[in-house]
């Protein structure tokens, strides 16, 4: 059942209505707002208010425990932009994002293609790829943190078996990115594969039949039919991965155990932006203003990346499905 909200008279002439009272008129005018109010209230309380408050805090020298918080204007922001640790964390975040997302989407595409064939126990396989996504992030991170241990870790043990030198997974910047990306990919590849699979199944079979009649091999069909028609879905997956990737926290935080794990290693090898925000807003600095400034710059960064995504979507995604184009050009 849907609620009819418009107050226009029905087309069929209605029987004469009793004169409307004042309450009734108010009802017609204001009840629509009331219906949508819960969303806006919840958004206001848990979305807009914290955003605005964080911005307000970021303009102050705000010691978390202190009682007075002097206004300092944009000082937190100017200091932050000149803070090499901030840029370092930004590079880490982007590095982990790229190393994790590219192989993840390629692997998901390959998995989806496999699952799209006539396999035995198809549903079982499809469910199986989603299983990693169900596990708790913290548990995954702790297990991977142990696997990638310097001395007692299984990965270095395997490397040793094939005669390679052990890698300091936690004290080498790129190695730590790879280790964290492995965690992210382990968890999210299956999820993306299922989304891509759903899109693949929506591709009309006759396209493949036509391609087969034209003599196209399976690989050719995949690259010339499947991939172009999956573009909007791939971009959707990329956007979801972007949002998750720029806010990466649990994996790198749990990967670094020991004293002050929030630094992400002795030289901040795997410290992401959210970890840097936490380090400043809470232990050991308790500088809430500075941490809030990091949060706002992160927000700006996500907005920029999202805008770039939309631009790419408009340019590339439109051609695939008419409905998608309608959606974006409106």
């Amino acid at each position, binding site marked *: 059942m849907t609620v009819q909200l418009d107050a226009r008279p029905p087309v069929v002439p209605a029987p004469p209505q009793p004169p409307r009272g004042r309450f009734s008129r108010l009802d017609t005018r204001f009840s629509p707002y009331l219906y949508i109010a*819960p969303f806006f209230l919840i958004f206001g309380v848990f979305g807009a208010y914290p955003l605005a408050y964080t911005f307000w805090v970021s303009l102050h020298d705000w010691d978390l425990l202190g009682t007075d918080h002097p206004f300092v204007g944009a000082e937190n922001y100017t200091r932050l932009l000149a803070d090499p640790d901030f840029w370092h964390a930004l590079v880490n975040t982007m590095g982990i994002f790229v190393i994790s997302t590219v192989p993840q989407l390629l692997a998901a595409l390959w998995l989806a293609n496999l699952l799209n064939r006539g396999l035995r126990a198809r549903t079982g396989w499809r469910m199986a790829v989603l299983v990693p996504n169900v596990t708790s992030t913290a548990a995954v991170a702790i297990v991977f943190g*142990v696997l990638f241990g310097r*001395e007692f870790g299984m990965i270095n043990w395997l490397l040793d078996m094939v005669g390679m030198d052990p890698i300091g997974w*936690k004290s080498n910047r790129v190695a730590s990115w790879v280790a964290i990306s492995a965690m992210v990919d382990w968890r999210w590849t299956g999820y993306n594969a299922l989304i891509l699979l759903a899109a693949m199944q929506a591709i009309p079979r006759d396209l493949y039949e036509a391609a087969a009649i034209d003599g196209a091999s399976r690989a050719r069909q995949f690259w010339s039919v499947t991939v172009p028609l999956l573009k909007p879905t791939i971009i959707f997956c990329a956007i979801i991965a972007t949002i998750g990737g720029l806010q990466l926290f649990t994996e790198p935080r749990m990967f670094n155990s020991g*004293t*002050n794990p929030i*630094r992400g290693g*002795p030289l901040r090898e795997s410290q992401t932006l959210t970890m840097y925000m936490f380090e400043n807003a809470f232990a050991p*600095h308790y500088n809430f203003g500075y941490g809030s400034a990091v949060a706002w710059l992160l927000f700006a960064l996500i907005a920029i990346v999202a805008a770039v995504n939309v631009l790419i979507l408009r340019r590339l995604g439109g051609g695939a499905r008419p409905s998608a184009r309608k959606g974006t050009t409106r």
Partner: protein
Amino acid sequence: MAVFPRRRLAAVALAATTALLVTAGCGSGDEQGGDGPVTLTVDVFGQFGYEQLYQEYMAAHPDVKIVERGTGTNLDEYSPKLTQWLAAGRGAGDVVAIEEGLLVEYKANPGNFVNLLDHGAADLKGNFLEWKWNAGLTADGKQLIGLGTDVGGIAMCYRKDLFSKAGLPTERDEVSKLWPTWQDYIATGEKFTAAKTGASFLDAATNTFNTILLQTAGNSSGYSYYDTSEKLVVDSNPAVRQAWDTTMDIIDSGLSGKYGSWSEEWVSAFKQSKFATIACPAWMTGVIEANAGPTAQGKWDIARVPGNGGNWGGSHLAVPKQSKHQAEAIELAKFLTSAKGQIGAFKAKGPLPSSPQALDDPAITGAKNAYFSDAPVGTIFGSGAKSLKPVYMGPKNQAVRTEVENAVRTVELGQRNPGQGWTDAVNNAKKAAAK
């Protein structure tokens, strides 16, 4: 569709909205009503050893129920939580433990805590070592934030089985004779390493660095990263540089197992007998026992620390102003920090009392630790306790210490040479202090 159902929908929406506002408006459902039993929450970290004492206290005070949170958590997890609770004005326990490194920061905002001097605590002054009592006072001496729990007298814990494998003496007095100074400790370590037992001589350079620094500072100026006028002196205090140089010698001799302290790897290294010695403040004995597990019982022993004395760690118990049962909480804090309470905690988990009466008690002086081959912990840690020299901790001590420790770690892992490491330590410490 008629008007009526629509109006009903409006009513539903209104009700939902109101409900939402009401729930958002009042978040506290834990208000204690009337004169019923009072529940006191105690927030701690690590191993305080209070279980038995709670039982005793509850038996004597039938109207009080005690709930403890946080045993076994790292200080790194505990302190941000406590700070958030204090900042938010709710969430903290009725009695909270504060570690010495953070005490200065909390004292800078004393409004968060009850002034214990207003509640008859002044009479208790004689129950604590003088410096421990003073550490709980604000700079102007007008407010007492916390009552002292333990002090961190330092010894050196070692593995007898690994020492014997390396052909070194295993008896604790003889082991103590091996290292009157840190240079002797390094020389012993070189002998140990040459014997190729498959284990390192020590766990992590950072732990040893902290020990040497606090010892050197205690024996000289009485401050480490900050001087007593709260000026950052990381690059000008000879104690810091001396501790740094000794630590570099240790790293240079290849004695460290490089197991980042408190990490998963560090815990594994305990279990797999991967190092032979660890600098050992009194509270560390409980940590070693928990990490190394029952199979290592009797393999550990405790010797003198190289150099002379030193204090690392120790806490205070405070009552946040947000507590709804301040009077009851203060009574509990007084009980837990009394000589009797401190003896009970020592027996349970090993934190060394800060009460002179407790330190003289036969229960302490005669105490032996079965896990550490019946080492007389009461005399090992207790005998020097009264002459312990405190080290002053500045306002951003924790943040500065983090930076210097990480610089030690980069050298230990071979990411930086000692010269670069020192430059990093000084620069990053200055930056952290300015934040």
